[in-house]
């Protein structure tokens, strides 16, 4: 966010306040250790009691990796994330194609644009029932797909999804590790954060 020109404000899990921020990124990690299903406990964190209604009211929210898992557990996004097909943690540079640019987080990209990012997760396999999957595709709610071989067995190669409105998005790979070629595989990920700043400025 800082690299994209925004001001980052840390939010504390135990503090039921969003402190007036304009957008929220739920980062990756291992919330509460994730010894239970990933994100299953974090969804009940005090800060989520403010975040869930705010997201329903239009606040731009991006969940990355564990953040994506939390958004699914919180039912802000459809589907769920389960153990990788290979049953091992996977840290791999992947290409994803941005499927929809009609969101608060992807407006800086062009539809179908392929970007290079890092995928690093043990439970990154996106699953949903057939009707949901069909609905996601039909309504343009697939945010991104893996462009190369499917790395973790995700349903129809889904790397990220968005809600119907487009303010809430979840992405399994990590755009924040692709903001500088010095420390990542590309700088392609900056677009997510630049998009949100645009959305906030326009909103």
């Amino acid at each position, binding site marked *: 966010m800082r690299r994209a020109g925004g001001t980052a404000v840390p939010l504390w899990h135990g503090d039921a306040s969003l402190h007036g921020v304009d957008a929220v990124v739920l980062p990756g990690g291992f919330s509460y*250790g994730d010894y239970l299903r990933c994100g299953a406990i974090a969804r009940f964190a005090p800060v989520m009691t403010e975040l869930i209604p705010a997201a329903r009211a239009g606040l731009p929210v991006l969940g990355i990796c564990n953040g994506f898992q939390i958004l699914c557990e919180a039912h802000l996004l459809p589907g769920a994330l389960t153990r990788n097909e290979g049953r091992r943690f996977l*840290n791999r540079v992947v290409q994803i194609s941005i499927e929809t640019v009609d969101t608060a987080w992807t407006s800086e990209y062009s539809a179908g644009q392929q970007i290079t990012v890092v995928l690093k997760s043990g439970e990154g396999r996106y699953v949903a029932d057939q009707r949901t999957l069909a609905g996601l595709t039909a309504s343009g709610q697939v945010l991104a797909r893996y462009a190369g071989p499917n790395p973790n067995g995700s349903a129809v190669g889904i790397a990220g999804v968005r809600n119907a409105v487009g303010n809430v998005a979840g992405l399994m790979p990590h755009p924040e590790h692709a903001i500088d070629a010095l420390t*990542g595989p590309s700088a392609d990920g900056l677009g997510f954060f630049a998009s949100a700043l645009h959305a906030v400025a326009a909103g």
Partner: protein
Amino acid sequence: MSATRQDTVADAAATPDRPQPYAELGLTGEEYDRVIGLLGRRPTDAELAIYSVMWSEHCSYKSSRRHLRQFAEKAPRTDVLLAGMGQNAGVVDIGQGFAVTFKIESHNHPSYVEPFQGAATGVGGIVRDILAMGARPVAVLDALRFGAADAPDTGRVLPGVVAGISFYGNCLGLPNIGGELAFDPCYAGNPLVNALCVGVLRHADLKLAAATGPGNKVVLFGSRTGPDGIGGASVLASASFGGSGEGAKRPSVQVGDPFMEKLLVECCLELYAAGLVVGIQDLGAAGVACATTELAAGGGTGMRVSLDAVPLRDASLGPAEILMSESQERMMAVVEPGGLRRFMQICAKWDVQATVIGEVTGTGRLEMSWHGARVVDIPPASAADDGPVYDRPASRPPGQDRLAADDPAALPRPGGGAELRAALLQLVSSADAADKTWVTEQYDSYVRGDTVLASPHDAGLLRIDEATNLGVALATDGNGRFCQLDPYAGTQLALAEAYRNVAATGARPLAVTNCLNFGSPEDPAVMWQFTEAVRGLADGCLALGTPVTGGNVSFYNQTGGSPIYPTPVVGVLGVHADVRSRLPSASGVAGASLLLLGTTRLELGGSLWAHIAHGHLGGRPPAVDLAAEQALAGLLAAAAAGRLLLAAHDLSDGGLAVALAEYCAVGQVGCRVELPGDPFTLLFSESAARALVAVRPASEGAFAAACAAAGVPATVLGSTGGTALRVSGLFEIEVAELTAARLATLPALFG
């Protein structure tokens, strides 16, 4: 030692002849008598527990201590060391007010018994060592050695170890930026799992393990104490496997909780920043026993502890068990009474349980009570510093000359192009030289966002300061085959390789840590190997100007009477003035000149070729030339800073053959090279002090001048480009074929 029976100091005085299980706890009769002499009475059960763990090989270094002194005696003159040997980890000044602390430690025995938890808690332990110095842990590396890659037990141990490191390190949010993976049947019953952690601090934040200021409170915080690994590391690591009747010495390995460790890290860093910590110690092997004695001994003070106050996960534990428990994710701090309230508030914020269990006294005694009675009353230094020190007999094994005489020069060598091609493919598809992605893909190398280089590059490179691009590079290396042939030279070769790997990124090597993995010190042949290795490392560090800042000794790596090859693993840390000028190990750019730096001799002793092609180990390891290593390192640093190179790759296992294959596979670029001399020697010899470099187009002249100025021989081999590795007049291999051969091996073995 049950909870119901209290053996008090008064009991001990009243019943001097009561038999005690000192032998079961690993103390010899002489050591037990020494305890009685120190105390003037028999120890209580709780005291016996303290002495048994503190005087174990693992904690006391009793067989190695007199040899390790050389690291201090021969230390090169340096002004970069802020804290050296003896502290939890050495601290090195890297300039601009920053310091780094780094250390490598073994978790070999637990990782064989229970690979997943053994390796996981190995990461946790070394991270707490770094945390205890006042530093924020920022990365880990793992040096792993297993039995033959295709042995069934390796299929049990390796996946578990890798998954354990992945589980713990990833959850903790520490990037894994490098390390090693090697195989040899000698490690079949004794895998080596060595974990290195590096941390960053400002000079002013350095913490030392000392309990000072009588009246200050002693706080135990983190996880509750349970019956984990009682006698685990300390007793387990001090007795070799095999033989009968040792079942009682194989207690359960500790279980790790990486999320608690993450909370503990953040909690400690906030406590440090608030200035609330007078002294701090992590709880590792020997738990509360070690932390209390070392803090009290370090401060030259006394300490009064109520063992009843220790929060327990199992209420049936008695004092000796509480003292010996190796429950993970615990720290002990000394806190001024005025700061205690704030200390507790910060712990509560991080959901870290914290309990005052005692206070610092001026008595010079470590006193502990349990259910109202005194169960420990000892001078703390007697357990922490005055343990037995052995001058174990060491003698050069009689087979050593025969081994040296078995010269691999007599082995049949590949002749024409087709045979050389096949030999190269055989090496690069061996588990030792194959692509390690199957392992490294399970580790998060990106987290924290400051990783500039990680596997498969020669060294890990981290950015330390975003404003100035200051960074540090780290590499670990060891070569058991070289050390088996000659432990003195082999250890120097390990040091030279790690030094060269760090230099290959363009960093300036600064300091050394080591993990000395050996068989039983009670075997004079092993002891000879050990003394030679220590002497070699101390002499090598003096010559290279890189002080040893700390490390770890792991003895008893043997099954029955068969020790592992002597395997000192050396970690080298370097400073990078500007990480933007880092050199990767390969570049995809076509049209760059490829040069071989250094001198190649016919040196096949202990080589990967002799090992893979012939299963042969004999002769002499490659010659050590530390002056040449220094010249090469200086050249690489200057060339990186001057932006003359695209890439640099150290030559080690498998020589130029493996280095060229790795260059092509990592860079996904072909090359055409001409070998000026005997192709076999040039391809497969493992002469030290060499590197393969790709020169930035238009910088050829400047780089040639730099080589000449540094006195480093440089041979133009050819240039990059095309889709194949082409060796003129001999053979060619498509990069796709090389890549596939390297990639296929580990997945075929481990799924």
